[in-house]
């Protein structure tokens, strides 16, 4: 049921290597998020699982069976595209039922399945409309309806929320998580938004230039990043990365400390700093400070923090929250 394994899956166009070789085991029912900056190969990797891109070498196993050469529709996976990719000339009903028709399912069975999917997604009254008559959120629901109606082993999402406005995005995020809970199906989700990754994933796969940098639960990645890249990518606002003299004191090339792990004092502390900007978000205040040899840093303070411009403060990192990295950007563990 719904396990997906990549065995050294490689993708190259001629001399241009997109994925040098990715190995990963996704468990049944797991919600895995591929995250990384644009151009890191996360969508390509997803499309390789879907069967929309051929592998240059390596293998993809679904449910333990080698599916490397199998057609997309034979893999038991559904995909939700970034652009929704609805069939514009078909009604909502036609869109949702297309896959079932292609599978040659009897008409009354199709009717029943479409009705059920439409009811779950609140689309019943829109079944006879064309996609162009729907709002962005409704289109997204149709795309999801098209995916769930086939009752697949696994779902693949390719940045499905990036075309929605911010409020709707939060709603749909919750709906997808609820759907995952209800269906218990394996889901692989691609995004460049690390907040989406942190909130939705059972496990996050961080990709950088086609390489899997680190795989782990959101908190594992947050607490124990394996590399500078992961440290800088996961967490918002970004981790402060400091190199040079201050880092040498900790026997590292670079050290990292998150904005929320810095103590603020007006009297004394490890690093003196000068406030240059303050962002008041209500619950929190983010101070952008000039910390001399440490460079510019971001510090989280209480929401009510009264930050006078150019005020002098002292910062003290929590000692067990300091991340140390060597010259290759790899984490140094104690």
């Amino acid at each position, binding site marked *: 049921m719904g396990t997906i394994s990549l065995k050294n899956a490689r993708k190259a166009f001629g001399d241009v290597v997109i994925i040098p070789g990715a190995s990963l085991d996704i468990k049944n029912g797991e919600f895995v998020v591929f995250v990384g900056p644009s151009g890191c190969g996360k969508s390509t990797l997803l499309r390789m699982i*879907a*069967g*929309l891109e051929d592998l240059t070498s390596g293998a993809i196993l679904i449910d333990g069976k080698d599916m490397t050469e199998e*057609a*997309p*529709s034979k893999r038991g*996976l*559904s*995909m939700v*595209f*970034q*652009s929704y*990719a*609805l*069939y*514009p*000339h078909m009604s909502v009903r036609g869109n949702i039922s*297309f*896959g079932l028709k*292609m*599978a040659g399912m009897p008409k009354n069975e199709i009717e029943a399945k479409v009705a059920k999917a439409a009811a779950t997604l609140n689309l019943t009254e829109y079944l006879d409309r064309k996609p162009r008559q729907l709002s962005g959120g409704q289109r997204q629901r149709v795309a999801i309806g*098209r995916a769930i109606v*086939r009752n697949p082993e696994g779902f693949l999402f390719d940045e499905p929320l990036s075309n929605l406005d911010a409020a709707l995005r939060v709603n749909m995020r919750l709906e997808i998580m609820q759907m995952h809970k209800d269906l218990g199906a394996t889901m692989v989700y691609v995004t460049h938004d690390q907040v989406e990754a942190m909130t939705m994933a059972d496990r996050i796969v961080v990709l950088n230039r086609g390489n899997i940098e680190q795989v782990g639960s959101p908190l594992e990645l947050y607490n124990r990043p394996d590399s500078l890249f992961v440290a800088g990518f996961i967490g918002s606002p970004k981790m402060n990365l400091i190199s040079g003299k201050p880092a040498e004191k900790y026997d590292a090339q670079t050290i990292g400390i998150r904005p929320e792990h810095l103590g603020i004092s007006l009297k004394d502390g490890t690093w003196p700093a000068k406030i240059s900007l303050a962002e008041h978000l209500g619950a929190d205040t983010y101070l952008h400070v000039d910390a001399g040899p440490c460079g510019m840093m971001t510090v989280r303070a209480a929401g009510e923090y009264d930050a006078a411009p150019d005020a002098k403060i002292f910062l003290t990192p929590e000692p067990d929250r300091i991340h140390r990295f060597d010259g290759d950007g790899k984490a140094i563990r104690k």
Partner: protein
Amino acid sequence: MARNVSFRRKLVVTALAWAIGLLIFFPILWTIITSFKSEGDAIALPPKFLFFDWTLENYGVVQERSDYLRFAMNSVMLALGSTFFALVIAIPSAWAMAFAPGKRTKDLLMWMLSTKMMPPVGALIPVYLIFRDFGLLDTRGGIIAVLMLLNLPIIIWMLYTYFKEIPGEILEASRMDGASLGKELLYVLTPMAIPGIASTLLLNIILAWNEAFWTLALTTKDAAPLTQFIASYSSPEGLFWAKLSAASTMAIAPILVLGWFAQKQLVRGLTFGAVK
């Protein structure tokens, strides 16, 4: 935002547009008018515009002397046949070029178009000899093949442009949904490209209908379309302007009517993708 256009300006622009329109249409109008004149009125100097004895005798003579319907039937068969086979080849070709392009796709498209830059007369003798040796002279099949090949580059180009506008993700979605290549083309791509395919089809019918060079060179009787019908009136016995005009009017009438009804579709098709 609607611009404020003064009445005078509107009047001038409208008059100008009508003048240009009439100027372009005048040769056809003159042909139609001449077809209702007696041969004497047709060559009269100064030309008579509307005040002459209107007569239908030319049409009677033309119909009597040659079998219009047979020529018209050939024209219909050649236009529809060549268009049908061209689309059967062009839809998959354009699909491949638009959605699975290779390194040489652009070059291939340019090369195809470049064949249209060659003067057709350059290929006349080899094509004629091929036709003679394979017994294709004056056969519908042969002419359909030539007309199809002649217009194929333009058809593929047009379809390629339309297909480029269709997001590839929709086709991929259909592949995820289990559509085979054939079903993907039939149920997803073609319905989405109907406006483009329709205008390509119309344009090709018109091009094939009007094609004179090859049809005149390669047909004599059995496969002869309306172009031969017209040409047969510019005979060595002397020019019969009125009869030639009547024949021309009869030859262009069907395509003129088709073009009139399809003009909206044609304009849409030719400017497709230009504004977005």
